[in-house]
């Protein structure tokens, strides 16, 4: 080995370890987070707190998957909520009509979502900016009105009534509140871990290139359309996961799950928490649900309060909460180095 080669190996090894270490660190954080969340029922008997975490899981999966589109790829979808609704309805209908084990219905729902997202995505991702936003919104409305008008199948505006059967599998009984809670936390953590992997993979950096400058990316040999379609389908899968958690939680599915306001809340959450960090949408989810729950307790005009809050973040901070914190830290570190 020449001296030059030796030098190259020395610089390579720590670099390779860096990427692997980062992955171990993420898994470690996920394990700790899961351990903390899963042990919560041991310390508190509060059903309301556990319910809150389950709702955070459903919305958190949904909002974080939206950030894969908005924050990482620069695709602002106004119709991402359709996959949340699709997940809830597919899962509920499969369980009600076919009575298969829950894991089978889970996988089948993901498969159905993937096919529908691929078809809708193939049409949408060719479009840019506002056109993409509005065509995704149009598809959302299409799915919503299909649910409303196909009453014999979907229950129409009444939703899926009669409860979703939740037979036990592998010793897990989702009809039991604590079991459902732990399963929701597990799905949330696994989903976040998988999305983190996507964001930090070579594909994740391809998405960032497309966000910054799609034309230049294509001059590097990247098939922009295919990359956008791939992330559109992947994001839809995680949104459907969120929808399934929601369907399990309320033991039903309702047209509101597929209404455009769900997409609006997803955008709102991303604005609240911030799109420049991976966990921004998760922070936004907790903030929004906290706000929703506290404000509705005090006033029926909670829309006004939420509107003021979003104006504060959009016009005051001009970024989400976690964006703000991350910038503050990097600013502090830079000035520290300068000294």
């Amino acid at each position, binding site marked *: 080995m020449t001296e030059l080669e030796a030098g*190259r190996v020395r*610089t*390579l090894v720590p*670099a*390779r370890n860096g*990427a*692997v270490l*980062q*992955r171990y660190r993420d898994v470690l954080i996920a394990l700790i987070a899961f351990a903390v969340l899963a042990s919560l029922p041991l310390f508190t008997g509060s059903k309301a707190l556990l319910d809150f975490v389950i709702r955070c899981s459903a919305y958190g999966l949904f909002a974080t998957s939206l950030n894969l589109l908005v924050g990482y790829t620069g695709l602002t979808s106004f119709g991402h909520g359709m996959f949340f609704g699709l997940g809830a309805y597919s899962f509920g209908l499969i369980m009600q009509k076919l009575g298969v084990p829950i894991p089978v219905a889970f996988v089948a729902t993901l498969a159905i979502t993937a096919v529908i997202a691929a078809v809708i995505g193939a049409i949408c991702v060719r479009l840019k900016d506002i056109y993409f936003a509005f065509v995704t919104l149009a598809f959302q409305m299409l799915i919503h009105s299909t649910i409303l008008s196909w009453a014999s199948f979907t229950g129409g505006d009444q939703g899926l009534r009669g409860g979703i059967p939740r037979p036990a599998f592998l010793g897990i009984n989702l009809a039991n509140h604590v079991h459902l809670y732990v399963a929701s936390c597990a799905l949330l953590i696994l989903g976040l871990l998988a999305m983190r*992997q*996507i964001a*930090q*993979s*070579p*594909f*994740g*950096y*391809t998405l*960032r*290139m497309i*966000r*910054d*400058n799609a*034309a*230049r*990316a*294509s*001059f*590097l*040999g*990247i*098939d922009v359309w*295919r*990359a956008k379609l*791939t992330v559109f389908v992947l994001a839809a899968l995680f949104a459907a996961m969120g929808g399934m958690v929601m369907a399990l939680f309320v033991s039903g599915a309702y047209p509101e799950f597929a209404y455009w306001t769900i997409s609006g809340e997803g955008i709102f959450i991303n604005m609240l928490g911030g799109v420049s960090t991976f966990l921004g949408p998760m922070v936004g989810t907790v903030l929004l649900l906290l706000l929703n729950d506290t404000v509705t307790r005090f006033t029926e005009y909670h829309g006004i309060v939420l509107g003021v809050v979003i104006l504060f973040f959009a016009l005051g901070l001009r970024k989400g909460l976690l964006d703000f914190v991350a910038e503050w830290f990097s600013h502090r570190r830079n000035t520290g180095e300068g000294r």
Partner: protein
Amino acid sequence: MLEIRNLAKSFGGVKATNDVSLDFPDGSLTAVIGPNGAGKSTFFNLITGALRPDSGQVLLDGVDLAGRSPPAIVRHGIGRAFQVANIFKSLTVQETMLAAVSADQRSSAVLHKRFPLPETRDRAEHVMELLGLAGKRNRTAATLSHGDQKLLDIALALVLEPKVLLLDEPTAGMGPEERWRMIDKVRELWETQKITVVFIEHDMDIVFKIAPKIVVLCYGRILATGTPDEIRNNSAVIEAYLGTEHAGAAA
């Protein structure tokens, strides 16, 4: 060898590229000059797939690439840098290079591994050293100086290890001193990398000094081709394009 055969493109009634045929032998360095609106950038856009030619062929080692998409043409080995630095503003210099190598190695869709892939490092490192960007590897592209952004743009094209490198005004928007540094860099790259380089340039001093071969475009047509001396003494070129400038330089 890059061969252009009867390439044509019109916008409405304007013939932006009008029956252009040119040969660029392997390892050649060619300057493309011409007054504003001569069709220089259009010529590049046709070769790289940004525009679809109305007719004609773009042959790289005998394969016709005319009308194919930019990604397909890049993968055949024609890289380009842009007149206005065309970069990824939120990525660091190093991330930009590593991601570009990933794209070239067909691993830009890999999901199950972490970025960056170890096998992308050497090439990224090599090109950063080559263009003097290694010391700025952790700078975000948007915070680089104008000159460094242009270098990063060229680095993006170069890191794909193209057979042919097209540089659309590498010195655009630079001061006189910076221009010479950039063009020395271009010449150095051409000499060390042994690739075919074609560049568009406005500064005549630069063109006559470094380009062994010059192509003059005017109204979408080739007005003349030849060595700097031939071009300098070509009456059609002097009349159409250089006359006034040379008179000014002589005075």
